[in-house]
Each structure stands twice: as structure tokens, then as C-alpha cells.
């Protein structure tokens, strides 16, 4: 099973076959076919991906507005970044958001997947659809929906909230509730994706293993710990990595639910890029923040991968 294809590109059992395909016609590969197949993608890639990335790096050393040229100012934007309090806060909030979503979303995905896998036939299809349908919705629909559910005056979710807390809460205006609620909405929205992946992982575990364990007298928890958890680990790694990369890039839910408020307590990095570049018209500084996001995602992903790899080796 090539579940680790993304995580470690080195394992490619089909490579030899593919190489054989090529050697049989190596002499016939003219330049024209290669160009026609590869050029469109490569051109699009260079123009829409490589060039903007390089441009962004260049922009970060200037004081350019959003549109138009700027003067070269060297490292000044970076120095400013280090002392920028709202920027530091936005990084902290992003990490807080990641802490609130990545592990819970993964854990919940696994739990739901284990529940769904037990069902059969059309019942399973329907239940799976229930979990996955939110993922299909656009972010603005999700936020409108939950804005309504949690409406301070008329929202139906205020009933359970006031039952637990004792009074209604204007969740997106309260600095303590705001970020956890954004995280909750995000988990509701994206959990289906994880459930699907875990179901695939669980299905790959041969049922004979469970039968054998049951015969040996192992209880449910023991079975989970010794069979399910280790064998579904590659999928868990995958989901955690995906989640980390995706949640670090968050913008839509925060912008639409809280606009970074209340009192900037939910401001996140991508939103700060938007604010600097588009609202305050500072293209150069916005590019600097964007580069930082770039670096942050790369570093954190690598760190996470290393941690997960060492756990796997254990």
C-alpha cells in the first residue's frame, strides 16, 4: 500500500517497470512530444508559481505599495517584523489555532472512522455522507451557517451554551471564546476528510488479526492498542501532516467570523498579510510577512515529520 507516497518519495516499487517502459523507446523520444506534453505545465508553473515566489522575495526588500514600484530598503522590513507586536500576536494566535485543531481533528477523525467502519451497506453510506458533507461546502456557507447557529439572540446553539455556562454567550465577541469557537467550526467543516482517510487505513487491516486477538482473549482496548493503532499509524502521520499544513494557512473562517477580533485576539498570519498588503497598501511589508509564513510552514512540517518518524521507529 502506497500510503506513504507523499511522506517518503523514496519508496517506489514500480520504478523498475517504469524505467523499462522508457528504455524500450528511449531512442524514439524526440524533443517535440516532450515539449508538447511538458511545456504547458512548466510554463504555467514558472509564470504562476516560481516567478511570484521570487517576486515576493524581491518585494520584501522594498517599500513598494500593493501596485507600483518601490525603493530598495534592504533588511528594514525584516527588522520591523521583529518588533511588530501585532505580527508576533498573529503568529501566537496561529499556533494557538493549530494546537486547538490539529490533534483534536485527527483524533476525532479516527474515532468517527472506527465507528463508521462497523456499519454496513447503505447505512454506512448515509452515515459517512453525514460526516463528509460539511467538507464539500464553501467556507462562506459554513461561516454563515454557524453564525446563525451561534447567533446571540436567536441561535439554537445558545440553548446548550446557556445550559452549560449559565447564560448566553456572544461567542465571536468574547476574547476567550472566539478562537476555540473558530476552531470548533473548522473541525466540524473539515473532519470528514480525516474520517475518509482513516476509513481507508482501517480497511487495510486484515480482520483475521482481530479474530486471532479475540481468540487470545484480548479485550477491545487491548486490540486497539496492539493492532489498530500501530497499523493505522501511517495514515495518522499523513493526516497530522496535512492538518498542520492546512491549518497554518487559515484565513477564511477567521476573516468571516471574527475579522481578527475581538480586540485582535483571533488575528492570524495570513490575515496579517492581507491587512498589510491590501488594507494598508504596504506590498513590500506584506511580502515579508508572507515569506515568514512560508518559512514557518516549512520548518514546522519538517519538525513534525521528524518527531513522527522517531516515534514510528520506536
Amino acid at each position, binding site marked *: 500500500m502506497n500510503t506513504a507516497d507523499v511522506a517518503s518519495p523514496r519508496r517506489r516499487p514500480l520504478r523498475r517497470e517504469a524505467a523499462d517502459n522508457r528504455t524500450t523507446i528511449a531512442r524514439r523520444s524526440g524533443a517535440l512530444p516532450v515539449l508538447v506534453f511538458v511545456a504547458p505545465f512548466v510554463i504555467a508553473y514558472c509564470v504562476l508559481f516560481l516567478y511570484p515566489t521570487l517576486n515576493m522575495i524581491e518585494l520584501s526588500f522594498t517599500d513598494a*505599495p*500593493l*501596485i*507600483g514600484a518601490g525603493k530598495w530598503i534592504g533588511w528594514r522590513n525584516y527588522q520591523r517584523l521583529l518588533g511588530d507586536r501585532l505580527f508576533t500576536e498573529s503568529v501566537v494566535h496561529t499556533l494557538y489555532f493549530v494546537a486547538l485543531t490539529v490533534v483534536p481533528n485527527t483524533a476525532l477523525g479516527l474515532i468517527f472512522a472506527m465507528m463508521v467502519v462497523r456499519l454496513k451497506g447503505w447505512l454506512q453510506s448515509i452515515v459517512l455522507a453525514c460526516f463528509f458533507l460539511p467538507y464539500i461546502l464553501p467556507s462562506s456557507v459554513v461561516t454563515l451557517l454557524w453564525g446563525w447557529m451561534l447567533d*446571540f*439572540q436567536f441561535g439554537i446553539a445558545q440553548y446548550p451554551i446557556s445550559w452549560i455556562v449559565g447564560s448566553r454567550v*456572544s461567542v465571536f*465577541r*468574547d*476574547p476567550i471564546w472566539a478562537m476555540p469557537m473558530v476552531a470548533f467550526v473548522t473541525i466540524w467543516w473539515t473532519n470528514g476528510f480525516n474520517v475518509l482517510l482513516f476509513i481507508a487505513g482501517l480497511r487495510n487491516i486484515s480482520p483475521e488479526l482481530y479474530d486471532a486477538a479475540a481468540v487470545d482473549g484480548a479485550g477491545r482496548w487491548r486490540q486497539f492498542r496492539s493492532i489498530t493503532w500501530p497499523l493505522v499509524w501511517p495514515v495518522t502521520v499523513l493526516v497530522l501532516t496535512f492538518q498542520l499544513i492546512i491549518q497554518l494557512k487559515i484565513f477564511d473562517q477567521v476573516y468571516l467570523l471574527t*475579522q481578527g*477580533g*475581538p*480586540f*485582535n485576539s483571533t488575528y492570524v498570519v495570513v490575515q496579517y498579510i492581507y491587512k498589510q498588503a*491590501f*488594507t494598508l*497598501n504596504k506590498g513590500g511589508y506584506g511580502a515579508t510577512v508572507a515569506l515568514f509564513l512560508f518559512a514557518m510552514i516549512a520548518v514546522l512540517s519538517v519538525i513534525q515529520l521528524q518527531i513522527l518518524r522517531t516515534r514510528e521507529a520506536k
Partner: protein
Amino acid sequence: MKFIKALAIAAGLCALSVAAEAKTQVVWWDFLSGGDGVRMKAMIQKFNAENPDIEIQPTTLEWGVPFYTKVQTSAAVGQGPDVMTYHLSRLPLGVSTGVLRPYSMDELKAVGLSESDYFPTDWDAAHVDGKLYGVPLDIHSIILYYNKDALKAAGLLGDDGLPKGLDGLDNFNAALKKLTGGKTQYGLSFATAEHGTIWRIFYTMLSQQSGDFLKDNKILDGDNLQKAEKATSAMADWVAKGYAPKLTEYPASIALFTSGKAAFHINGVWEVPTMVDLAKNNKLGFDWGAIQIPTLFDHPATWADSHSFAIPDRKGNPVSKEKVDAVMKVIAWMNKNSIMWASAGHIPAYKPVTETAEYQKMQPNATYSSLAKTAVFDPKSKIAGVASPVYEATANYIQPAVNGQLAPADAVQQMRDELQGDLK
């Protein structure tokens, strides 16, 4: 292939809409919703009906930062409307980012408008560096809405139907105490979760103490800081004592008043049509009125701002002369017909309309129109105005202080420090 067909159909649809163009089309952006929006839509429809050679195509976007950000990015890429509504308080900021196109006096003269048609303070606020960037439409302010029945029951209503004994912060608080609990849950409702409302009340209170927010490039200098703290504490006090509801959204704060759960309501004049419409349809359940904000401190003063019409400076694609001419006709019509706009509670900026008998009879406008004499505009600076650092600082410091989440002394100090830094 399917997609080429889809493209062709879409292109055909576009061509059809373009072909129907025999009149000059004016693309109009505004941020007016609620009672304002309804009135303005009616005015636009009337204009389109009376002027067959010009058609206004309006779009309403979200008030505040979203509106002004869209205006800015559009202008920077040569897109955007032909005319838009713009707060005069934000003109300095707008001009500094190169978003606005100045008017020439000839353009105004061509449609019969001139300086003498406007109030001096308003006219002055419409200029930056001696050039006119916005043609005023109205002056709008905040007022005190009150529930006549509730006040009468508490003995706070005079024989003339106006509230009595509200001047002076202590008297006002005593009145609130009387009105809180019982039939009306709150003495006063205002949008404690909306920074615009909070800024307006804060600035009103500061001005009533003769305080200066920004003077000689200094924010809340000297004893102005204590005055600011006094204003913030007064509002925080109302919430802490339960006279006013905590963390309440704008529509909810109105709903509290209109459902009789709050005896007083502080909000802009633009909610007058909401009250008028509800009363007309017998949905209000009580007699209502509105007066100028009482003098809670040393002397009367009320915050005010002005809606104006501005033309964006679109880079590389300026608004053509033909469109400018059409826009000027629109602006002139709007000004001359601003009696309709007055029914939205506003005070027309166009003096000739305010001098008509019809306007002077209008209620409740006549009751509070005296506020124009002591109205104070936002400081003229590129950090001030709607969707500016000042408004943002209000959201981040004064608003939590009002809701008991930050000490008022700390709030005003942090606000001062942050804004002083922005001024550099």
C-alpha cells in the same frame, strides 16, 4: 468541447447586456444599509425615473473597513465605481493613499452648486490641502431615543413630552437606575460590541469636557488623558451597574429598545426611519421620541460626521469627462432632493433645503436639529475617521474597557501610546 460552449454562452449574455446601453451609466458604490439603505434606494429609483438619460447602477458593500479596502484596491488597479459615498472624517486618510480625485469649482458651478450652499464647518471638513474631495450630502450625529411611556411611569417625562432632569452625569445615572429592572430591563441600550458606536459616545463625552483628542500632533495630551478616562469610566459604569447590556451587537441593541426592554437608546440619527416605520405599522407598542444627547459634563456637544460623494482616482483609467458630468448631475439632484434623505433622520448638508418650511416642520428632526450648533467633527488627520487607526484603537482598547475587560486608565493610556506611534 463543453467549456468552449459555456464560454460562448456567457460571452453572448455579456454582449446582450452591453448592447442595451443607450444612456450614461453611473456605477455607484455605497455602504448604506438598514433604514438608510431603504431611503437611498428609493432616492436612486426616483432619480432614475426622473432622468432618462442617466442610469445609476448601485451596489451596497459592507460598512467600514471592507468598503474602504475594496475602494482602495480597486482604485489602485484602475477599477472601481464612478462615484461613491465617503465619510468626510476619512478624507485625510483617503487623500493620503491617493484614492480620491479632487473636484474643481467649475464642475460644481456647472450644476448650480457653490460654497454658500453648505455649512462652513462641513465645507471645511470636505477639503484637504485646500482642495475639495467630497461634496457633502448630510451631517449625521447620535441622539438619545427614549420610550415616552416608560419615562412617564418613572416620573421623568415633562409636560412637553420631553425627558427632564437628565443633564449632568449624576442625574443621568440616577434616571438610569430608576429605569433599570422592572418593566424595562435596561435603562439604556447601545451597541457595546460595536466600536463605531463606542467611539461616537466617547468622543461626545470628551468634547463635552472641552477635551481634545488630537491637537498639535499630540494624542490626549495633558489633562485630556484624564478626561478620556472619565468618559470611558462613565460608559463602563453603565455596563457594570447593569444599566446597559454587555457585549451587545448593533441589531440586538436596537431590538432591545424597540421591544420595550430598554428605556433609552443611544444611536445614530439613521435609525429614525426604523422607529418611524415600526410606529406607522403599529409594531412599536409605545410612544417614542428623540432628543440631542444631554449635557452630561460641562457644556453641550455631540459627535458628528458627514456622508459625502467622492470620485475615485482610478490609476490608468480615470473617470471620463462624460461620466464626471453625469456624476455631477447625480450629486446636484441628490443635494436638491435631500429632504427625502432628511426623512432618514439626517440633517441635510445643502443649506437651501434646511431653510424650507417643510424641513423645519419635520419630526423628530426638529427636536434635535439644535445639535448642529454644537456638533464636533472627528480630528482632521490621516489616522482618524471611519476605518482608520483611531477607530481600530477604539475597538481594541475602549471597547473592552466599556465591557469590563480592561481598566479604563490602562485603556486610554494604551490607546494614546499606540496612536502616538502611528503619527510618527
